[in-house]
């Protein structure tokens, strides 16, 4: 239980830092921080699949994108989601629905097949978003009446955003530290033994997948609000690749001392900053990421691997 207390204190420190951020950062950087927070939640939701189930998905953008579109489409139909909490809820439910649908399909696959399946399923959703113009606005996307104004991030909306992200993350922390999390660890460590002990392995896997999908959906909903705009790129392979990169980078950080729980969050922060810096010098962000992707995988080297 010592580890949990340490994490709780760390979490409190982060909360304090987030509270103080508006006094330290300009509104431009505050907006960047908000983006980082949203991505952090996105990455954390994926890490449930990668670190807890050993299933690195290349299609996690599916839940994120549908969550974002849910907010956008509702707005288009005239229903305002009302603030970060509303966006998070709408997105979360949408992400959950996608996970309900995709779970039975994706979870049947193992190894390379799983990567194939998740990528293909997400790409199909992307294709639908591109083609079903009546619903999604196609390539041109949807404008979301949100907070993205030319004046940069306002403090009030930042607090709302940060609060929701923090709250959901704490919820995840609690859940993963509970008996549920321990069972997931057992499944990851020795699936056969778990089955022989009587555990419903498929059921738990599905539940974890649903959790990951809902989390990503929440991030997507917030993203739509924060960005003020939703387009098929939210469902693209590039987005799935980026969030996976965040998790993989986080794993490397974890191997070098960063806490297990915080590693994907930190990975997200690093990638958001990196992308910001790289993008100001060159348009070749995708190439940089591709190379860095390979690099991070090469670094995996010895030690116990979860996948």
């Amino acid at each position, binding site marked *: 239980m010592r580890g949990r207390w340490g994490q709780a204190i760390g979490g409190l420190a982060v909360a304090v830092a987030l509270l103080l951020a508006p006094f330290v950062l300009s509104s431009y950087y505050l907006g960047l921080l908000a983006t980082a927070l949203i991505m952090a939640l996105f990455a954390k939701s994926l890490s449930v699949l990668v670190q807890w189930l050993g299933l690195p998905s290349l299609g996690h953008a599916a839940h994120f994108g549908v969550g974002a579109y849910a907010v956008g489409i509702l707005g288009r139909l005239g229903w305002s989601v009302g603030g970060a909490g509303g966006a998070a809820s709408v997105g979360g439910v949408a992400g959950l629905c996608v996970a309900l649908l995709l779970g039975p399909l994706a979870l049947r696959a193992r190894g390379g097949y799983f990567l194939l399946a998740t990528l293909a399923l997400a790409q199909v959703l992307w294709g639908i978003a591109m083609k079903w113009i009546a619903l999604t606005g196609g390539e041109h996307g949807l404008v979301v009446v949100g907070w993205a104004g030319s004046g940069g991030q306002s403090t009030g909306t930042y607090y709302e955003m940060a609060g929701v992200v923090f709250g959901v993350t704490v919820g995840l922390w609690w859940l993963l530290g509970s008996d549920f999390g321990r*069972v997931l660890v057992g499944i990851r460590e020795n699936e056969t*033994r778990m089955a022989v*002990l009587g555990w419903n392995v498929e059921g738990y896997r599905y539940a974890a997948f649903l959790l990951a999908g809902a989390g990503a959906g929440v991030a997507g909903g917030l993203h739509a609000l924060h960005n003020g705009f939703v387009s098929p790129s939210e469902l693209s392979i590039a987005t799935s690749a980026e969030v996976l990169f965040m998790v993989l980078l986080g794993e490397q950080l974890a191997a070098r001392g960063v806490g297990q729980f915080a590693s994907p969050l930190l990975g997200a922060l690093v990638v958001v900053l990196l992308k910001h810096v790289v993008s100001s010098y060159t348009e070749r962000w995708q190439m940089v990421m591709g190379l860095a992707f390979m690099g991070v995988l090469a670094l995996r080297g010895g030690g116990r691997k979860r996948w």
Partner: protein
Amino acid sequence: MVRERDQALVVDNVTKRFGGVVALQRVVLEVAPGERRAIVGPNGAGKTTLLNVLSGLIRHDEGRIYVKGVDVSALSAARRSRLGLGRTFQVPNVFAGLSVEANLWLAAEAGRRWGGRGNGGVVLRGTATGSVAELLQMCGLEDVRHNVTAFLPYGKVRRLEVALALAARPSILLLDEPTAGLSEAESEELLELIRKLGRSVTVVVVEHNMEFALKLADRVSVLHQGRVLWEGKPSEITNASEVVQVYFGE
């Protein structure tokens, strides 16, 4: 049928083929509640296959299996386990990356949720943590409770293997060559442990170690080339010519 309901375990003409090889041929077995049954036989007789088929890790091709009167032939390993069937593995199949305590918790929590239902079963303290403590003591693992199992000596891992099976509170316990690699003294300890479990638990042991098997068992089944060659009391086995032939005649 009446007989399925009365018995703890009934194997009704089970056949298992691997390609062209027939591993189990119309095997018939009935184990009474609380009985200690030993299944012996030379290498390749099909003993481990029988255990895998019983526990549900492998699907059999023909025949039926009844656990406490329930036809489990189509049920998954997890479902069978929840009916009260537990097992150990010949090669320890533990959670290598976790501590001994964490290992036991997973089994004990399973035992808490669906163990000991209905009649009998391994009796442990009510809560998961409580039964973990009890098992650590029972199986001599207290001194290594926080150790990661990947770094434990073989003897301790073997004990953990048994403890895991017990933690799930099975009413029928299948043991796969539990004395493999154990010393004389350790085998005696294991024998004592099983004796202490009492008659609320049915125990089926697959063994190579004839001495251990005969000491433990109420009845012995001899498997040879996938068939039950002979069955009877331990005291009768030395007179069974077929068994002697199979063990010494080759």
